[in-house]
């Protein structure tokens, strides 16, 4: 998983960073020299060092999104040399270390580019569209305190493991950023797959996939042409098999919904 370059000596690189003051402002690439870096620094720590220098001079630091810095919160979202999250497979930007670059490299850093993810500032884009998709159906309805004993519903280990594979998605949006069509299929497929694989998720299985896909389309994400760039860029290596599964679920749900009998019960009672 580690790229071929493994520096151990200090290195200097040139950054070409997208700077954009606000959503409605034009942006451009600006060059910065980052000198004498320890190869054990993370990419974000390198940006910290550059920013501290800028701040000390009273210049606006490069805005970039980050939080956990251990590859789990999904906040960091840099496109480094044309690949979301940088050179490594299965690794988020924040876990990318400077030892993966060579002395003298020119590194281009850009924000995600997708219409549903508008740039807010510099390298930060707004990914609340993912929340909207989740709100449309990415859940199992359970009121607090209404659940049966956890062991009352056994879940075959294989299914649970597969569900976990999908559930690992950190909602970073790299799949959208990497997809030439800016499609959100991997993100949505992962959630649909996770909940659809578990017995607990069956009651809402059809309505969930229909609602989430409809929201995804409404928000303006592009259409999948099965290019698998998404899973290649995904820091959690979520498999595009979950897209196939969602395709099937969606079509099956559409047919089931069209032909299943509907109750005309209304609420009320004594």
């Amino acid at each position, binding site marked *: 998983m580690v790229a071929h370059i493994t520096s151990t000596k200090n290195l200097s690189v040139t950054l070409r960073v997208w700077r954009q003051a606000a959503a409605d402002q034009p942006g451009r690439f600006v060059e910065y020299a980052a000198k004498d870096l320890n190869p054990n620094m993370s990419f974000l720590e390198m940006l910290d060092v550059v920013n501290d220098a800028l701040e000390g001079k009273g210049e606006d630091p490069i805005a970039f999104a980050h939080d956990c810095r251990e590859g789990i919160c999904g906040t960091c979202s840099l496109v480094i040399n044309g690949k979301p999250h940088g050179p490594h497979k299965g690794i988020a930007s924040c876990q990318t270390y400077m030892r993966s670059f060579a002395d003298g490299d020119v590194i281009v850093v850009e924000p995600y580019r997708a219409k549903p993810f508008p740039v807010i500032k510099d390298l930060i884009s707004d990914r609340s569209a993912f929340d909207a998709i989740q709100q449309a159906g990415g859940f199992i309805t359970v009121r607090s305190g209404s659940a049966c004993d956890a062991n009352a519903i056994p879940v075959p280990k294989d299914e649970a493991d597969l569900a976990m594979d999908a559930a690992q998605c950190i909602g970073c949006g790299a799949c959208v950023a990497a997809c030439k069509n*800016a*499609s959100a299929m991997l993100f949505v497929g992962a959630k649909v797959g996770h909940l659809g694989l578990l017995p607990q998720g069956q009651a809402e299985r059809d309505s969930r996939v229909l609602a989430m896909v409809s929201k995804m389309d409404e928000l*303006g994400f592009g259409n999948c042409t099965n290019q698998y760039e998404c899973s290649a860029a995904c820091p959690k290596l979520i498999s595009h098999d979950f897209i196939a599964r969602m395709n099937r679920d969606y079509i099956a749900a559409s047919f089931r919904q069209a032909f299943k009998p509907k109750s005309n019960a209304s609420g009320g009672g004594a």
Partner: protein
Amino acid sequence: MNLFANLFTSSIGRKFLMALTGLILTGFAFGHLAGNLQIFGEPDRINGYAHFLQSLGPVLWLVRLALLAAAGIHIWAAVVLTLESKCARGPKDYGVHRWLEAAWASRYMRLSGLVVLAFIVYHILHFTVGLAGNEYYKGTLDAVVLSEDVREFGFPLATKGTEVHDVYSMIFIGFSHPLVAGFYILATGLLAVHLLHGMESLFQTLGLRNANWSCCLRKAVAGLCVLYFLGNLAIPGAIVTGLLKPAPGTHAAVICDAKCAAKAAAR
């Protein structure tokens, strides 16, 4: 109806239609190739076969309509989905472009599709309707009489003595022109490329693919595409290079011989 809306307005629904229509078109393409390969047999074979198809009447039209609809939906979906996807990138594109894993063929689907479309239009004008500068269109060539019953797997297609179009000669004469043959080869090559991604991709779209057998699928698809291309290459290729000579006595042989004589005389 919801089902209708889901299929025609949602991203996955339209992809589903695309895969279904793609599957139908692929089925036709392979069937058509099998039929065309009969050119390597006696002239009566392909002529009888073509006659049989023509004799189907309303059924032929039904099939044609179905194919047309499939192609129409396929192209419509391709256009709509592509336009939406272009829009989804947003106002600004990346400064650095990089491909990570996308299959090579998948990157040129729109291009290969378009060339195939152009080809199909030309091809129908060429062989089915007889425009496109084909002075030896089957309709203008004298009809030929089958010298024998034509059967395929024991199934009778046409009986001895029937008058039929000379499709055999039409193909021969058509492909004797290097430009025409070249375009056919190019187009069918691109079609093979289209199918190289398309046939695999449709399993993903229909939700039938997963990592456990994707490797076999990929190999099988690649194999089919190579075979498909070789088959399509063989017909114009063999004719234009002269490896396959028209059967003596056919219109094609007559015209060819005349051409050769003219060429020799010019020298």
